[in-house]
């Protein structure tokens, strides 16, 4: 029999070993049951009242948004064209850290084009916060952008100096242009905002998102925001119908100034057709950082423990019973035995993990919805959403990877007690330390240890505003770390298998 033919037989042999030890079979089923069970129980311990928040603004698609800026506008009916030149845009210098009363906090750098100080022109469905809009703007650090309805963004030139901007409305579409000299125009994009009545508000505006500071560690996290303001000079304002311009703070910015606070108050001054506008606030998506998919997968931590035990025992029990000598007599090429074990264990654990993850999602999401995780802040996640599928599949891969690392460590140490303890500590230790460590320092722990795999459970982008350290890295980075550990553990195990007597 050639070696090529014998590998499937080897796989079958290892599968038979895994399947026929009743204690392991029960533990594997138990891993799925533990995952689903703990997720189900813990879901009722999650509660949010975010939808009851008084400052909550929803966009045209029902999603949570921020819509705060200073708007100098007038009413226009029908097709129209607005052209302005943004002569300058200045904003407050950033401070890296701030003392917000309870210790030092780190500034959160948000690279999103929606989180930049900006001066631009806008067509908006009235002045109600959250209403449909399309805008073209010069940002402080990311050049020119066209945006609409709090989610769409088209990048224009990277120009940072004075820039001519133009919005053209024609029926239900709005086209954005930019120009360096007001003569040669480049098109940026075409928008079709969701609600665009025939009479709209049109004008120029300044926004400046608040500086967000976060402090985490010691098992908790807190977020604080300091309003910032930006100032821009507009000239060469050209609108076909010449009405009068009216300056107004939209959204939170308006509420703050009504209360008499000078922070957050915007203003406009006019001199010889040139306008100087000071504005504050953010126009863009504002989803909560909490992740419903992650919250539905709490049980994974329990399932992992069971899988680690099976993974380690799949290796060590052969040594304890002297079986390994028989195994190697049957298949002298030890690397192939290790490969077969890893494939069988990895595949089985992946399926167990997938059952656990999907089961958790299906059972825990309805409970979370009862606990306040509902639209608009938390739109109902569907099993078929790209990000949900990714989270569930990568979580199963994470669980399989950890089981295979357990196998590798089991081969290396040959002792169940030591191998199980080390593997569990490798997963749980960095999580606990990472929760206690302050600031962004646990990031490196997540990039280097198996605990980073927990990042696979998140369907939302990474953030440093949460207590859980694995939220700091992305899911692909997390599974990459796990893959590196699998390679490392199997590599060492293979090297030791060849070197040592059985």
């Amino acid at each position, binding site marked *: 029999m050639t070696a090529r033919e014998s590998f499937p037989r080897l796989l079958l042999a290892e599968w038979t070993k895994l399947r026929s030890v009743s204690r392991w079979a029960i533990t594997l089923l138990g891993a799925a049951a533990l995952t689903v069970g703990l997720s189900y129980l813990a879901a009722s311990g*999650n509660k949010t009242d975010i939808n009851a928040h008084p400052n909550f603004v929803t966009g045209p698609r029902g999603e949570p948004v921020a819509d705060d800026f200073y708007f100098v506008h007038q009413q226009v009916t029908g097709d129209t064209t607005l052209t302005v030149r943004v002569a300058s845009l200045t904003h407050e210098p950033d401070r890296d850290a701030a003392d917000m009363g309870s210790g030092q906090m780190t500034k959160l750098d948000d690279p999103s084009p929606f989180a930049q100080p900006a001066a631009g022109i806008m067509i908006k469905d009235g002045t109600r916060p959250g209403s449909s809009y399309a805008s073209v703007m010069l940002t402080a650090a990311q050049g020119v952008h066209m945006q609409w309805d709090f989610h769409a963004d088209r990048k224009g030139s990277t120009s940072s100096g004075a820039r001519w901007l133009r919005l053209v409305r024609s029926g239900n579409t709005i086209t954005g242009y930019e120009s360096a000299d007001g003569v040669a125009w480049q098109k940026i994009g075409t928008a079709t905002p969701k609600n665009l009545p025939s009479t709209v508000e049109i004008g120029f505006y300044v926004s400046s998102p608040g500086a967000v500071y976060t402090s985490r560690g010691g098992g908790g996290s807190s977020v604080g925001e300091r309003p910032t303001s930006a100032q821009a000079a507009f000239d060469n304002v050209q609108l076909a119908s010449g009405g009068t311009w009216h300056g107004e703070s939209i959204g939170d910015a308006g509420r703050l100034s009504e209360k008499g606070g000078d922070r957050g108050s915007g203003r406009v001054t006019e001199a010889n057709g040139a306008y100087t506008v000071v504005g504050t606030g953010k126009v863009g998506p504002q989803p909560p950082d909490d992740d419903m998919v992650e919250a539905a997968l709490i049980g994974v931590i329990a399932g992992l423990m069971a899988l680690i035990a099976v993974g380690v025992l799949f290796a060590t029990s052969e040594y304890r019973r002297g079986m390994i000598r028989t195994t190697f007599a049957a298949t002298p090429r030890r690397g192939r035995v290790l490969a077969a074990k890893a494939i069988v264990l990895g595949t089985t654990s992946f399926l167990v993990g997938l059952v656990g993850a999907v089961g958790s999602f299906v059972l825990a999401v309805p409970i979370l919805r009862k606990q306040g995780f509902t639209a608009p802040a938390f739109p109902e996640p569907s099993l078929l959403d790209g990000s949900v599928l990714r989270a569930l599949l990568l979580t199963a891969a994470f669980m399989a990877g950890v089981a295979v690392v357990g196998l590798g460590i089991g081969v290396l140490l040959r002792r169940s007690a030591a191998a199980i303890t080390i593997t*569990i*500590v490798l997963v749980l230790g960095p999580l606990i330390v990472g929760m206690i460590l302050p600031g962004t320092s646990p990031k490196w722990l997540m990039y280097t240890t198996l605990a980073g795999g927990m990042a696979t459970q998140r369907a939302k982008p990474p953030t440093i505003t949460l207590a859980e350290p694995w939220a700091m890295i992305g899911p692909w980075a997390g599974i990459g770390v796990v893959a590196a550990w699998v390679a490392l553990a199997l590599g060492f195990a293979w090297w030791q298998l060849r070197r040592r007597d059985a």
Partner: protein
Amino acid sequence: MNAPRALRAVRAEWTKLRTLPSTGWLILLTIATTVGLGLAITGSLDYTHCDTPCTLDTTKLSLAGVRLGQVGILVLAVLTATAEYSTRTIQPTLMAVPRRFLVVLGKLGVLAVLGTAAGILAVAGSLAAGRGVLPGNGFTAAHGFPAPSLADDLTRRAAIGTVLYIGLITLFGAGLGLLLRDTAGALTTALALLYGSPIVATFVSDPKWQHRIHRFSPMDAGLAIQSTRNLAAEHIGPWAGIGVLSVYAAAAVVSGLVVFQLRDAR
């Protein structure tokens, strides 16, 4: 050999444990990890980076190494109960001492003494390390941080409580080992209960549930007694916390004993 049978059983178990090289290493590991991690934590503190007023609980932080160090004694306790099953020496053991209650008593007695002894050394080492390092980092009596001393009621309570904690963890591990007769199962269960529950608590966002999980998780409840400042921030009272851990240990030991009495050894 006219010594009472119980004493002979204890002596037999002591001989078994004493002659295993791993016993010494695991106890050394417990002490070294506890003291070492405590030293690393206290060494990294700096008074100048602390808020004013500085509310750090230096005693609690000096003793925090036990959170990792307990793994050594836990492995020892589990192995003491389960290793005889994997090597089949449980049969000669039961032939020599047919009264199973005495066998368990012997194992638990020896383990309790070893665990407590390791606990005393680990706590003494951690506090001494804290005393040595903390003043150099600005935590001086002038700043409101007198050196941790057993003359202080709260520090003494924290020290005694930590020793008790290690002793109870030892019994908990041995009980689980007897109950499950399987090293892997018992260790996995114990580690998941100890380390998994605090992680689940941070996952959960409802403060009421967080509070409940912290109250009833063996490690968080059992180590609440280490607190010497801001006691109200703990989720459970010091002795009530030790009580919770005692319930875990007692449940494991009693069910382990019942199962051991009823089941055939194999």
